[in-house]
């Protein structure tokens, strides 16, 4: 039985490699092989190389006799990376699987269902932790000669770490499931948690190099201190180096934790997997209803769709958060920034203002809400098509939502830039005007892209939001224009004052906006009506 379930689970995990969900048909063999190669390349060369570089930068502490500290530090990163990568898939894989009801009504033991589900989680954790640990082991053996003991330790290291990742993912997945049953505004909480993760990620990323330098410089002090105050962590590090007693203790502890975790989860699995949210139902009481115009209703529909989906908000609206954060940063560090930039670009100050505008363009380009909005109609398209709403009104609502989400953060960011960098009045006014015009242009461009390569047959909203070609064009088109705006001034800056250059860009953006608007109002309407 377990073999059948494992086969089903593996088919599900690797479905994307064998089946094209956008076209709703099986991939060709060549396409499957290509996807596997691309995945291997991404994992081994890009991610692996990043952690290889990290391991290499830490390698001096191995020569100092602190190999255990080296392994401890990298194992900790592997655990964090593995848990971060698999905790949400544990929750959805275990408790939200669409076939839970189907399997539970078949003569299959709960343990077998859980084991097959956890295989996916384990593979995910193994993959993420191996990306950190394999380069770590390679760098270790470049520095230290191999012997039987340290080879055993190195071989068992990914196994113990991945099992620990499995236990921790299960525990966190269980907590997420329990919280989720009681949560009312899941979308906003998910977005908030994701934003905190992003902030932490960037904080750690920017601090990493100085931290590693500090760590290597004081490795002896840290090492001795950790060994003295947290002996258990010393044992963990030593186990990776092949100390057999430590290895036995660590493997036993990890297996014990896994056993207890699985026992606790299996006891509550059916209850959580089959229960619906226990959020207190607020029964509707008949009350006065408020009416809106047709356009107001259609715009509100787009807004509801956007705010109800964490995927939509995070993938197509994150630029708004970046703009606000950038504005605050620029205001706080204004004096220092102005001084540093003026010194760096002495005699060519215009590039500072044009560069700032290009950066704001860049952040606006990340908000491509209109691009997936046509495909997102999906199976509900019949509704808007059967209602007496002109197609122009529908498209206008998609356009305006993107403009509304962008307009306040971009003006805020542009104002902050003007206040902090203090350009002349003309350049200041043009900075704000250009950002507003780019908001309009990019919304039109996103909708233009969204009206091409439309996919209404998706089963997961992530497909139109993240994986559509139209979305790719909308984002990269905007990013390309941002880059071109900045780069072009490097060549033209010697001949044009910034406000002249900005006026030219403004004119171009307005002309292209008019052209895009005309396309959407004519051809775009026809495309939508023929869906």
């Amino acid at each position: 039985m377990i073999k059948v379930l494992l086969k089903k689970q593996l088919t599900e995990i690797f479905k994307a490699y064998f089946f094209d969900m956008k076209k709703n048909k099986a991939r060709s063999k060549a396409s499957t092989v290509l996807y596997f190669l691309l995945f291997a390349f991404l994992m081994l060369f890009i991610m692996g190389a990043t952690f290889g570089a990290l391991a290499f930068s830490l390698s001096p502490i191995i020569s100092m006799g602190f190999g255990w500290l080296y392994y401890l530090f990298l194992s900790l990163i592997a655990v964090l990376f593995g848990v971060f990568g698999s905790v949400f898939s544990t929750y959805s894989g275990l408790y939200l699987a669409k076939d839970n009801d189907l399997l539970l009504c078949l003569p299959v033991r709960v343990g077998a269902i859980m084991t097959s589900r956890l295989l996916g989680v384990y593979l995910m954790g193994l993959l993420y932790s191996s990306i950190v640990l394999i380069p770590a082991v390679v760098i270790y053996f470049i520095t230290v000669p191999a012997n039987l003991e340290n080879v055993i330790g190195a071989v068992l290291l990914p196994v113990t770490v991945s099992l620990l990742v499995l236990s921790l993912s299960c525990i966190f997945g269980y907590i997420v499931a329990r919280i989720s049953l009681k949560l009312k505004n899941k979308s906003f909480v998910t977005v908030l948690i994701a934003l905190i993760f992003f902030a932490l990620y960037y904080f750690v990323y920017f601090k990493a190099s100085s931290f590693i330098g500090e760590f290597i410089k004081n490795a002896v002090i840290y090492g001795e201190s950790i060994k003295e105050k947290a002996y258990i962590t010393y044992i963990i590090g030593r186990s990776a180096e092949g100390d057999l007693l430590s290895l036995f203790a660590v493997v036993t502890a990890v297996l014990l934790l896994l056993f207890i975790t699985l026992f606790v989860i299996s006891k509550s699995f059916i209850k959580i997997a089959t229960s619906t949210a226990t959020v207190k139902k607020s029964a509707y009481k008949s009350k006065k209803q408020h009416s809106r115009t047709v356009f107001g209703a259609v715009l509100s529909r787009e807004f509801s769709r956007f705010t109800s989906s964490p995927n939509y908000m995070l993938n197509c609206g994150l630029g708004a958060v970046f703009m606000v954060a950038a504005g605050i940063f620029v205001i706080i560090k204004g004096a220092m920034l102005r001084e540093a930039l003026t010194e760096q670009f002495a005699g060519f100050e215009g590039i500072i203002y044009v560069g700032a505008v290009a950066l704001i363009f860049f952040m606006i380009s990340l908000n491509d809400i209109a691009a997936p909005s046509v495909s997102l109609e999906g199976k509900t398209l019949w509704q808007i098509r059967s209602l007496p709403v002109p197609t122009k009104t529908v498209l206008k609502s998609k356009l305006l939502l993107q403009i509304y989400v962008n307009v306040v953060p971009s003006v805020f960011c542009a104002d902050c830039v003007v206040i902090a960098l203090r350009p002349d009045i003309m350049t200041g006014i043009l900075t704000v005007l250009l950002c507003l015009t780019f908001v309009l242009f990019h919304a039109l461009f996103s909708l233009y892209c969204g009206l091409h390569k439309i996919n209404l047959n998706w089963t997961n909203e992530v497909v139109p939001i993240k994986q559509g070609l139209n979305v790719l064009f909308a984002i990269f088109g905007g990013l390309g224009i941002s880059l071109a705006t900045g780069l072009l001034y490097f060549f033209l800056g010697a001949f044009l004052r910034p406000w002249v250059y900005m006026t030219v860009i403004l004119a171009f953006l307005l002309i292209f906006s008019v052209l895009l608007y005309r396309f959407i109002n004519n051809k775009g309407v026809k495309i939508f009506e023929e869906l």
Partner: protein
Amino acid sequence: MLKIEHLTKSFGEKKAVDDLSLEINRGEIYGFIGHNGAGKTTTLKSVCGIQSFDGGEITLDGISITADPISFKKQIAYIPDNPDLYDFMTGIKYLNFIADIFGVSEKEREEKIKKYAGIFELTDDLNEPISAYSHGMKQKLAIISAWLHSPRLIIMDEPFVGLDPKASHSLKEMMREVCDAGGAIFFSTHVLEVAEKLCNKVAIIKNGKLIKSGTMEEVKGDESLETVFLELEAEK
């Protein structure tokens, strides 16, 4: 009231609807029956403007669905066979959205929501997101939304699927009320007993072609509708 003249629609080589003509008058409950893939849904979707068609004309009191779709759609309501509603809205938000589109006054929508949500026992669930609704609840919500703006013609594709017996009974009564008030109902169904008891007129479609239509008596004579339907289906 509703005139379908020589309607033709093809998907590639296959003719889904072939030269179909029908007329539905005020006060009529018109049943539309046929085997799976006969062309019922394609016809209904063409009538309510969801699907374009290759030939023919569809008018409602002289207003053409192709020439003036907005005026046409203002007079009708459509309930599909599988009500994929906006999962991201709550029930009450959805009803208000539909009422806004049709310009239903605040007082009128309040009264109608109260009345129909009460009939279908959905009042307590209106604050819940549609994603939490069962198939039957979605079907009930779609029916309430269709009745909100007092349409003159209601088009329904398999409306009784997923409804509990009490809700089915209520829907049948509501259909009669619409016709008594001078409106009309055009619906497809596979439940021939329901069609036989409920409809004034019936049309049978086979492989895209209309093979029989008229009053219930004209179509079935002394036999049951099921017998007539099976005999017609058996003919080559």
